[in-house]
């Protein structure tokens, strides 16, 4: 348990002392990231980096072992017509599919992430959430994506949310914990910032914007606020926390804007799959199409890329 001991730095901080967010300033700053001109070689490198950071995701009620196996095949063979591509960081599935994914991925060094804690609503007793987390880890999940109890958070019961994250953290053992704030339900950027601080102090390895089931999901402003929280937390404690925007990032261009923002907010140290992920299902193919366009000069069609 030594690993968890190190990660659990804290106790619940005084959230009233968390800096307030200047909403207009954040909007303007994030708009600025979209005006950077990224030219050819840098663009290709950025696209390859995006690929390596993708958590290829399927989280649907209609998921079957067959579909998950197919997704894993896609993760391993992104586009064999272009040799030398990096593989995605992880495959993200429901707990019942962890075993299937683990087996399908074999020794390919692609991680298995599992959502847990009554994803996506988080409306279940703690006991069940802990049990679900343990099951996912026992099945072989390398990473757990938990959701916070937004209801409790919104009614100000920060202690409850903090304890819950800390308890799940413990149940994860050696598995990495990503904490989903579901920013679309938090309402304001101030709350996003507060929830980020709370989650990091409770032991999150990653903070993640959204489940992908609620609109709005990841946006540039929300992600910027979370990155700033990570930066300040790092200055305060010396511990790096990862970031995962998820939901709604489906174009390569937008993904590059996110990387620009990451580079200019947290710096180069965070620019690896160990500290930054994209939760997405359709982003990979768009990136592949752009890479192919860069290689051939010809705009591509989705018809020539495997769906999953």
């Amino acid at each position, binding site marked *: 348990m030594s690993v968890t001991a190190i990660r659990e730095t804290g106790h619940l901080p005084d959230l009233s002392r968390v800096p307030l967010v200047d909403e207009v300033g954040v909007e303007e700053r994030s708009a600025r990231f979209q005006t950077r001109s990224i030219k050819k070689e840098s663009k290709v490198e950025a696209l390859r980096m995006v690929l390596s950071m993708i958590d290829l995701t399927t989280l649907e009620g209609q998921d079957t072992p067959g579909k998950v196996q197919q997704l894993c095949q896609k993760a391993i063979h992104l586009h064999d017509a272009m040799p030398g591509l990096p593989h995605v960081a992880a495959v993200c599935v429901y707990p019942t599919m962890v075993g299937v994914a683990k087996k399908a991925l074999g020794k390919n060094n692609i991680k298995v992430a599992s959502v847990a804690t009554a994803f996506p609503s988080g409306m279940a007793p703690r006991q069940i959430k802990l049990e679900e987390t343990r099951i996912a880890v026992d099945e072989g999940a390398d990473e757990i994506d938990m959701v916070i109890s937004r209801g409790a958070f919104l009614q100000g019961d920060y202690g409850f949310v903090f304890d819950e994250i800390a308890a799940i953290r413990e149940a994860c053992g050696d598995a990495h914990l990503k904490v989903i704030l579901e920013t679309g339900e938090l309402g304001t950027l101030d709350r996003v910032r507060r929830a980020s601080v709370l989650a990091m102090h409770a032991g999150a390895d990653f903070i993640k914007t959204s489940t992908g089931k609620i609109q709005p999901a990841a946006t540039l402003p929300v992600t910027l606020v979370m990155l700033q929280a990570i930066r300040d937390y790092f200055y305060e404690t010396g511990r790096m926390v990862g970031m995962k925007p998820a939901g709604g990032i489906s174009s390569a261009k937008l993904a590059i804007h996110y990387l620009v923002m990451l580079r200019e907010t947290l710096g180069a140290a965070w620019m690896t799959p160990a500290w930054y992920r994209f939760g997405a299902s359709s982003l990979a193919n768009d990136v592949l199409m752009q890479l192919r366009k860069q290689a051939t000069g*010809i*705009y*591509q*069609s*989705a*018809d*020539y890329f495997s769906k999953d």
Partner: protein
Amino acid sequence: MAGSTSRVPVEKTYKIYIDGKFPRTESGRFFPLEDSDGEVIANICRGSRKDFRNSVVAARKAFPGWSSASAYLRGQIIYRIAEMLEGRREQFIAELHLQGLSKRRAKKEVDATIDRLIYYAGWSDKYQQVFSAVNPVSSSHFNFSVMEATGVVSVLAPNESSLLGLVSNIVPAIVGGNTCVVLASEEMPLCAVSFAEVLHAADVPGGVVNILTGYREELTGQFASHMDVNAIIYCDSDTDVAKEIEISAADNIKRVVNRTNTDWAQEKSQNPYLIKETQETKTTWHPIGS
């Protein structure tokens, strides 16, 4: 309108038409359009390959909805385009005149364009019956062929016939359920932009028709090579250009439709075979008892 009471002139900004919206080109470039006396009539967007790419994305997105809309609805919408154009006859006549046509020719062209729209609106629920077939086969199958829209069509509209030629190439494609990206006449682009406004007012869904202005030499290669375009229509008689189009189109085996040397004013330039040129034939073998 002389003296102190004269109004400040309100000049129209000619923009491009992508996904049901009227943006300027993302490149920010433009070129001045001059009349025969060298006077600048308007600044025209010099569309870029990225505008083209965005248009293809819009056209692809619009395709499932438009191709599955009922023939009746497509016919109604195309009839509506004619109605809207009828209401703006004077504007189009004036624009053609401004670009060098005589008043008489301009009027004739606008009238012919409206009539052409009506002509193809009528074909919307008929071409299937003409081109579909029940085929004789020597096995226990009911075998039939129907027409299906090919997908996204890129159109290099004729340079000379800037309104009638434009419409004569767009409409047969869309009446058959295709969506399209069009490059307007380089020398006479005004009517194409105004026609986009007519399309917009006629409830043609965004993305079904996308109209760009710009340099032909710069954009032809993109129109021909894009992997997500299923057919290309061109009217250019230059054999080098034709060769370039044919070679680039081969990568994803686009349909290449060559409409060189067509006199769009003639009656015989409107016929259902133009619809068929952007259709695929789907044949079904359905088992039946002997």
